[in-house]
């Protein structure tokens, strides 16, 4: 076995340990320290790093890692990623609630008492179903359009990202069939059964965090392994120079479709996770700015870099979800001003995209780490020989 593999495995082990440590710390914090700690700690955490916000953050990490496969690895600009989020969410809505009341199906499901009508499938199967369904949609939308130039693809995905939410918003009566319950959305979603001993309702944020963290870890693993393999290299080659890649024997269509399908799959996962997080699906939440927010996460982190993208997702979802609001409240309180800080979202994300493209196209956490791993591996090789 060459040094390369050894290093790869070692660095993989290292991240697994780091990830677990952070997750365990957060769980202990939310489950035990905050409820039992002093009230200032409670207020501080609630205000700046609430459990709900952390869970939402994980949704964004999952989504961003998925989009990273499409944009960061394969270099295909997808401006309508929110469509997969929406589709994934509605799959959860259909399969994990009493919404489709004409049925009474229960597959390892966990309906709340009194809501036994409808389809109830276990959370883990719904994840797979939503991912698969989204992947199929990804292929349907991708197959005819991936042969186009990249900027055209961007527009088609954008169109798709506009149509899908509109379908759900207008979907309470499609020829008499209620697809989505329109603007009222679908709620509640079945509680998740937590390893057989607890039903996770809307307030069990700490346990849900554990489940979401596991899914997120899975996404990280998928991203890393695919990147290191044959397909990952083909994706990067296409990103770097499509024509040269095809002349080196990389089938463009199939490889791009694979990226698109993997990205869509993760989008579906994110959708299900989000649906269980907010205990419902609401069509008007899925708008264009979400697609751009996720794109900004990928760009900020350095396209293609898994760690960078995770950091990007954490920082931006925090700013978007809680940080800007809290910061604004603090500033307005201190200086007795009345500035509408959340409205600066547009400015922040817009300038971020512009400045990143101008000055740090490789993102804030770019090659450095990659280079490090590679050089370690070079040294290792010398030991081996």
């Amino acid at each position, binding site marked *: 076995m060459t040094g390369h593999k050894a290093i790869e495995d070692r660095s993989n082990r290292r991240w697994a340990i780091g990830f677990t440590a952070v997750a365990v710390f957060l769980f202990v914090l939310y489950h035990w320290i905050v409820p039992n700690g002093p009230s200032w700690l409670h207020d501080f955490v609630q205000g700046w790093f609430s459990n709900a916000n952390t869970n939402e953050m994980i949704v964004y990490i999952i989504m961003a890692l998925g989009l990273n496969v499409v944009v960061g690895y394969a270099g295909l600009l997808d401006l309508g990623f929110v469509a997969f989020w929406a589709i994934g969410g509605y799959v959860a809505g259909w399969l994990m609630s009493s919404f489709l009341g004409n049925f009474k199906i229960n597959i390892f499901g966990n309906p709340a008492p009194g809501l036994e009508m409808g389809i109830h499938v276990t959370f883990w199967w719904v994840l797979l179903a939503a991912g698969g369904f989204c992947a199929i949609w990804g292929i349907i939308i991708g197959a005819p359009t991936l042969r186009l130039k990249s900027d055209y693809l961007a527009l088609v995905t954008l169109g798709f990202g506009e149509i899908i939410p509109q379908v759900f918003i207008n979907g309470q009566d499609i020829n008499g069939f209620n697809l989505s319950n329109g603007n009222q959305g679908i709620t509640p979603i079945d509680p998740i059964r937590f390893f057989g001993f607890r039903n996770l309702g809307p307030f069990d944020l700490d346990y849900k965090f554990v489940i979401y963290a596991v899914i997120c870890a899975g996404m990280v693993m998928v991203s890393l392994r695919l990147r290191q393999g044959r397909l990952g290299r083909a994706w990067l080659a296409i990103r770097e120079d499509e024509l040269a890649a095809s002349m080196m024997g990389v089938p463009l269509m199939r490889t791009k479709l*694979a990226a698109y399908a993997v990205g869509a799959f993760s989008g579906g996962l994110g959708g299900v996770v989000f649906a269980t997080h907010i205990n419902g699906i609401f069509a008007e939440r899925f708008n264009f700015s979400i697609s751009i927010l996720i794109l900004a996460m990928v760009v900020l982190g350095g396209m293609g870099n898994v760690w960078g993208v995770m950091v990007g997702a954490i920082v931006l979802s925090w700013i978007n979800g809680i940080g800007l609001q809290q910061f604004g409240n603090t500033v307005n309180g201190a200086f007795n001003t009345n500035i509408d800080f959340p409205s600066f979202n547009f400015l922040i994300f817009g300038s971020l995209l512009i400045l990143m493209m101008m000055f740090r196209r490789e993102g804030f956490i770019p090659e450095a780490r990659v280079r490090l791993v590679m050089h370690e591996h070079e040294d290792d090789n010398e030991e081996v020989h």
Partner: protein
Amino acid sequence: MANALEAHNITVQFGGLVAVNDVSFDVPEGGIVSLIGPNGAGKTTFFNVLTGLYKPTSGSVRLNNQVITGKSPHIIARNGLARTFQNIRLFGLMTAEENVMVAMHSHMRSGIISTLIKTPHQRREEREAHERARELLDYVGIGKYASDYARNLPYGDQRRLEVARALALKPSVLLLDEPTAGMNPQESARFVDFVRKVREDQKVSILLIEHDMSVVMKVSERVTVLDQGQKIAEGSPDEIKTNPRVIEAYLGKSGVEGGH
């Protein structure tokens, strides 16, 4: 000797413009042949037909006796036609090693699932690919750059990396598109030796497009001249040197027609 690559009566038209007109051409097995011509003579267009980027308006191309006309570039590449680019087209933000491994794509089998669960077959395949990539990089003399980004390599070494990448396809025919562009005379001379060595070691036939006449005359066993989309001469370097039509094409008034 059999032919590794044969092009029969290739014609390419863009709208009303005839870029390549009824050109037949072959690359004998194990040979080194050159294609030359003034700017706009249709060399690049012809090259693009061979590699599957353009579909010819008429005519056919055979690679190892299989018809490849109109096939996608990646299928033609898989069948054993590899190329380098006039203006280097490496995968800039991938390491030199990865650049080479990309070209092994079509000889590898692992898919999404086997990569995710790391089957023994996938691990072995990856390991072998790494080793082969290292060998190729050492072979072209840039092993020390294996883990550097391709875009950070010195210019001459980028050209070498392009050759290593092309060889990773295990080609039977290697097309070199102006490989000595931007090299000084010493580098060019060394490149000539290198091309011969590659032919011997790797058992490939080589087709060269080149501007530098000294390189062409030194390395080629046969030279074909295109002018304004037509084949105007073919023969040994010495024959070409003295061919009046060739001299006219290069020195006459016809040298600046646009034909891309």
